[in-house]
């Protein structure tokens, strides 16, 4: 997946978790949890959504790599 596809996927998954969240307002290195007001349950649902849509396992130890847009797109692009 390229960067655009990953962002579109993320926006899609987020729409079911935080409908008012607007990715366009989030900087690449901002913490998504703070920027979009996601609690631990929301973020877990986000990881589950990304896992289900991409088939990537995302081990628990890797979850912190997804806290920023840059980290998330980099991780899923591999």
């Amino acid at each position, binding site marked *: 997946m390229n960067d*655009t596809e990953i962002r579109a996927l993320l926006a899609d998954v987020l729409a079911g978790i935080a409908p008012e969240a607007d990715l366009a*307002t989030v900087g690449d290195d901002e913490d998504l949890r703070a920027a979009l007001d996601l609690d*631990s*349950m929301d973020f877990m649902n986000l990881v589950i959504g990304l896992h289900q849509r991409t088939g990537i396992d995302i081990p628990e130890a890797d979850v912190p790599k997804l806290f920023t847009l840059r980290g998330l797109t980099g991780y899923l692009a591999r």
Partner: protein
Amino acid sequence: MSDAVADFLMPSLGADMESAKVVEWLVKPGSRVKPGDVVAVVETHKGAIDVEIFLDGVIEDLAPLNQQLPVGALLAHVRGTGGGGTQAPAKAAAAPVQPAPVPSPPPPTAPLSGARGRVSPAARRRAEEAGIAADSLHGTGPDGAVTLADVELALSAGPKPAPAEPARAGRSGFDPAQMRQAIAAAMGRSKREIPHYYLGTTVDFHAAQTWLDGYNASRPPPERLLPAVLLLKATARALVQVPQLNGFHGKDGFSPGPGIHIGWAISLRGGGLVAPALHDVDRQELPALMTSLRDLVQRARTGGLRSSELTDPTITVTSLGERGADSVLGVIYPPQVAIVGFGRIVERPWVVAGNVAPRPLVTLSLAADHRASDGHLGGRLLAAIDEALQDPANL
């Protein structure tokens, strides 16, 4: 066959509800209903709630839709088919209710169509509210995506863009202003009437965190657990030992709850709070509890809580989560007699076997009703929660 007719009344879905309107009947006049069936959807300040019936028979005389009706208003008649016992539904809400099987999550409320992709969800939502077609706007976001700012700009710019097709009829969410009033009323009553006492203690979360990390490490995302389920289960275990804090205060003093039904405080996006019940938490295995918790939070936010979930909580637990404050002193939700609070789990210096070591700690608190208990008993509850968290494998 008995012809006894019972009244199905607008239930009271918590101390903070005065009225609601029926927005959908899920049965037709003449339908057969039995206890536990969801028969109607009512719109309250907590959003759309699925109302269960606790009568057995044939339902008729359905109240009209979209009229604001007070608690206790007649919603329908139920003609009994069995022994003819007529049971007031208002009372039925307090009767022990078996935990319903975990329902499949409701369909996503986000509008889905093939055309999406270049409109951010927030922008789409705002555009739908305003009745304009977001796709027709000029986008300034990444790759020309239409952002919330673009929609706001279009809305402020005068001539209306092309009207959208009528939005799919869906459950509308709660009204934040109404919910604020309702919270104010319930919490005002709590602070006026309930003589609160407060206790706090710091709990070493090391054993629980270590166990949790080990559990989650080998599991795919959908099977992982959050610390919240350990906190919930430990609280439920402790309440088995200290049942005097699990129940209700009424005219005749304290009455114990019919089970350990923990109201889990969920903050709603856009403001507001609801604390629906997780049923029989002491008897649920952790994975099942996690599934119930995810389902409950999802339904609290998208509509679809059941009436019993709002009336059944025997105690409330509030957890501030990973980005919250270090501690919380709760306000009791009447007629409950206690609320347990967990602050954020933080790494701090802690003395272990005579040495200072970094440890994940959580501040555990209790606010309880002095009419029902004293600090000594409250202290026993907190100690029992602490103890349960030190042995996570047995939760």
